[in-house]
Structure formats: structure tokens, C-alpha cells
């Protein structure tokens, strides 16, 4: 069977430090943080009173939603997802389908952890107050997990596969890999892939209660998220959405589309919560296997990977992740690829983390830069014992490179790793 090559032709992002691709690019090059103090979390007695959420005003939302939709919209995840998704479609030079017939060759896989948690809370309160009638017609569409892909596909008129995936913090990277496989096997020409996450106390509360979020930087929000740092003390919760248009190389060339990068391989797996893997801790054997299989599927050697965009959440597990990358790639401390984590700037955007970080990865490959690790001046000594300090840049490096590996790991002991390659015309 002839397999399609798959390229990325459009990007969209709604991140805590930038809600357009150009603002986001500027932010990641300059280390601009999206972490802010959250009065609402303070009021509710959260240990972690800082978080990172996209800042969007009503005028912006009006460009994507009808007045009727806005009348009852109470699902930030759907808003972020639609903004990122529609922006990616437009960036790819694509239009919504004709009014009377869907575009059979286009679909979307847009993941999320939950949907419309604020809307859900509102509905639950009405029901408990014996006011079931007051729910109206908008609760289901905003609280079904597939709400985000349903809104996007309706706005764009998609007639191919339309679904929502969910695999905790690996969701965004997984959605891109699912779309990649779908195009590779010839089942669609174009897929909008991405993921989103709601904002607010009802999403972040469970993590706060587990004590996996930092509570040591409430007075200095921008210093709070410290991946790979000796003083990392837990992650900063975040939210937002990232999206990209994946397209067969043939289709992209036929319509003269701009090509950001090529996806040359990837793998998803699970540690099965066996060995040292649990609901919340990754099985290192599975993480390494996921990376090895991704590299193999790309048809490259591990030494060809020049940059890694890690999962690296700013918890005690960061050193274990570095150890896993090192073991999987089989490289020495000095020959380890450059590695960075976006979470220093945007916190951990939960189910949106993978897609936002994949957008950042594609931008680095396409424009030729490696963003600096924010808040990592004091590299964790356990990490420094594994890899040379200069492998963890704290300042922007302008450098053209060819291959980047990006991985995301999630609760449930699930892993996803994607291999991206710079696309040279011809």
C-alpha cells in the first residue's frame, strides 16, 4: 500500500501567553509568561493561587461565534478550541465548506479532558433546585466531550472523521498522531488536529488537592513554573488550546500551500500501570519504548534528533523524564539533544498541553530557533548529573535544525511521542 507523506500546513493557538500564532511566537522567543495570580483561586482557598489561562475579550469571541451561540456560551474550552481550530484552518489558506455539502476530504480530531465544566455546574445546580426545565437546549452540546469537535466541524463543514480523543495530558499529542495515521493511510486529505482544556477552579481543584501544584510562588506568579529547576516544586495549572492542519503532501503541493514541517513518525503506548507505573506515575520502560518506537517509525537514527520538546511539568519527575530520554536515545551526556519545556511560560495546560507544545515545536523547526527554558537558571543537579548543562538552554538560540522529538505523558500511564522534520521544498 502506498502511504501518504503528511505535512503541517496551518497553525492556530490560544495560549496563556498569546492567542494568535504571531503573539505566541513572540512570547516563546522572549520568554513571556502567561502565569498570573488568580483571585478566584485565592478566594476558594486553593494552595496554588496562580494559574495560566488565555486572555480573550468578547470582541474576539464574536468573530467566531454567532450572537445566538454567545447567548448561552459557558464553556471556555470550546471557545479556546474553536479559536485555535478556525485560525489554523484560515492559516492553511482553507475556507469553510459550501453551505449545502460538507467537505468529504476534511475532518477533525480535537481532544479534551472534560467539556464545559462551568456549564455543567450551572446545569447541575438547576437540576438540584428542581428547575430541570430551565436548562434549555444548549447544555448537551457544551458538556458532551465531543462538543469542541462538533462546534468546529459545524463551522467548517467537515464531512470526514469528526471525533474527540481523551488521554489526560497526552491528549493533544495523541490527537495529532491519530490525524497523522488517518491521512497517511489515505482516508482523508486534511485533518484539523488539536486539543483544548477548560479553565477555572473546577478543572484545577483536583490537582490542587493532590498537592501536585506548587504553593511556593503565590507571590511571584511568573517564577512559579520551573521545569528542570533545582527549586521546582510542582506544576502551575493552565488552560488553552492548540491546533494544526495536517494534510497529505500531495494535497498541500497541489494547492500551493505553505508547509511548516513534516510529521515523519510517532507512537502511542501505555505502561499498563505495571512495574513502577501507576495511575499517576509513568512506567519508565513504557516511556522509553514509546520514544524508541517513534524514532523507528520515522526511519531515522536516534542521533538525528537535535531538539527535544519535553513533557517536563516542573515536578520531581522531571529528572526521571530526562533519564528516560537518555536511555531511549542511547546518547552520552554531551551528545544529548537540546531540550526545552514550554511549561515554564504557560504552566501545565492539562489536556491542551500536548497540542500547544506541538505548535511551539513546529514553530521552532519552521523558523529555526530553540526557545529558552524559563526559570531554569538553577538546573536540577539530578538532571545535570545526566546531561551537560548547555543541553538545557535558558536563553533563545537561533539555529536551523532538522529533526525535533516531542512527547507527552498522561495520567493512566499513557504516552505519546511525535517526530517532526523540517520541510525543504522539493
Amino acid at each position, binding site marked *: 500500500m502506498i502511504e501518504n507523506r503528511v505535512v503541517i500546513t496551518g497553525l492556530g493557538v490560544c495560549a496563556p501567553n498569546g492567542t494568535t500564532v504571531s503573539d505566541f511566537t513572540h512570547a516563546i522567543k522572549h520568554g513571556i509568561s502567561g502565569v498570573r495570580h488568580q483571585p478566584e483561586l485565592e478566594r476558594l482557598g486553593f494552595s496554588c493561587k496562580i494559574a495560566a489561562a488565555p486572555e480573550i475579550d468578547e470582541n474576539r469571541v464574536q468573530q467566531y461565534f454567532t*450572537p*445566538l451561540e454567545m*447567548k*448561552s456560551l459557558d464553556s471556555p474550552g470550546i471557545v479556546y478550541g474553536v479559536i485555535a481550530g478556525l485560525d489554523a484552518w484560515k492559516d492553511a489558506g482553507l475556507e469553510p465548506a459550501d453551505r449545502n455539502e460538507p467537505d468529504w476530504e476534511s475532518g477533525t480530531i480535537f481532544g479534551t479532558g472534560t467539556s464545559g465544566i462551568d456549564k455543567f455546574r450551572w446545569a447541575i445546580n438547576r437540576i438540584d433546585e428542581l428547575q430541570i*426545565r*430551565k436548562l*434549555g*437546549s*444548549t447544555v448537551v452540546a457544551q458538556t458532551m466531550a465531543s462538543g469542541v469537535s462538533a462546534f468546529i466541524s459545524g463551522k467548517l463543514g467537515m464531512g470526514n472523521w469528526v471525533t474527540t480523543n481523551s488521554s489526560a495530558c497526552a491528549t493533544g499529542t495523541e490527537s495529532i498522531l491519530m490525524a497523522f495515521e488517518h491521512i497517511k493511510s489515505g482516508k482523508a486529505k486534511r485533518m484539523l488536529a488539536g486539543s483544548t482544556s477548560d479553565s477555572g477552579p473546577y478543572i484545577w481543584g483536583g490537582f490542587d488537592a493532590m498537592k501536585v501544584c506548587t504553593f511556593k510562588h503565590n507571590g511571584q506568579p511568573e517564577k512559579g513554573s520551573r521545569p528542570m529547576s533545582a527549586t521546582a516544586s510542582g506544576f502551575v495549572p493552565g488552560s488553552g488550546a492548540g491546533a494544526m492542519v495536517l494534510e497529505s503532501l500531495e494535497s498541500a503541493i497541489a494547492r500551493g500551500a505553505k508547509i511548516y514541517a513534516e510529521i515523519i513518525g510517532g507512537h502511542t503506548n501505555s505502561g499498563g500501570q505495571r512495574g513502577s507505573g501507576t495511575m499517576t506515575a509513568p512506567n519508565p520502560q513504557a516511556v522509553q519504548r514509546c520514544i524508541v518506537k517513534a524514532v523507528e517509525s520515522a526511519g531515522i537514527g536516534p542521533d538525528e534528533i537535535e531538539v527535544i520538546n519535553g513533557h517536563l511539568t516542573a515536578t520531581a519527575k522531571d529528572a526521571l523524564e530526562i533519564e528516560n530520554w537518555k536511555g531511549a536515545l542511547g546518547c552520552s551526556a554531551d551528545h544529548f539533544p537540546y531540550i526545552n519545556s514550554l511549561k515554564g511560560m504557560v504552566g501545565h495546560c492539562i489536556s491542551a498541553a500536548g497540542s500547544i507544545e506541538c505548535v511551539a515545536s513546529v514553530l521552532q523547526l519552521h523558523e529555526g530557533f530553540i526557545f529558552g527554558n524559563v526559570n531554569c537558571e538553577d538546573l536540577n543537579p539530578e538532571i545535570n548529573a545526566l546531561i551537560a548543562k548547555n543541553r538545557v538552554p535558558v536563553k533563545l538560540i537561533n539555529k536551523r535544525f532538522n529533526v525535533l522529538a516531542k512527547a507527552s505523558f498522561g495520567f493512566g500511564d499513557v504516552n505519546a511521542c511525535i517526530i517532526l522534520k523540517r520541510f525543504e521544498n522539493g
Partner: protein
Amino acid sequence: MDKVEIIGALKEIISPYTEEHAVLENINDNTDFIADLKINSANLVDIVLDIEEKFGITIDNDAMGKMLTVSATIEIINERLAGDVGQ
């Protein structure tokens, strides 16, 4: 309540739910919400909720099922207004 007054209120309530603004401007007794105003049937329950709020009335499921045209809607609103006054 005066019929002209009710129609004025209905136009305002229905406006966000229809794209047929010319038809809405000229609604009459026979105007059908779905056939003429092209309202998504799922939104009929939202319109009923908006009517309840605007007129301070409650509309039961049976009555709701009949509210497909302007005349039927006006009739039900008037019945409920009269009923509520009498209570």
C-alpha cells in the same frame, strides 16, 4: 395583553434565533416558526423559556408542543396571563 404588544415582544425574543429577518419583521398570525422563520427545532424550548421570563408565566409541556405558530403562541400567552391573574 394587547396583540400588537405581544407581537412586538415576540419579535424581540425570536430575533437571535432566526436569520430570516425580513420574515420576522412582517410576522402575522399564520407565521410558522420552523417553516417560515427557519428556526432550529432544538431552539423552540429556548424561545419558550424566554417567553416565560418576559411575561412572567409558566408554560407546560402540552402547551409548549402547540407553540409552533404566532397565533397559537399569542393564544397560549393570553391564556396563561389570564390564568395567572385569576390565581
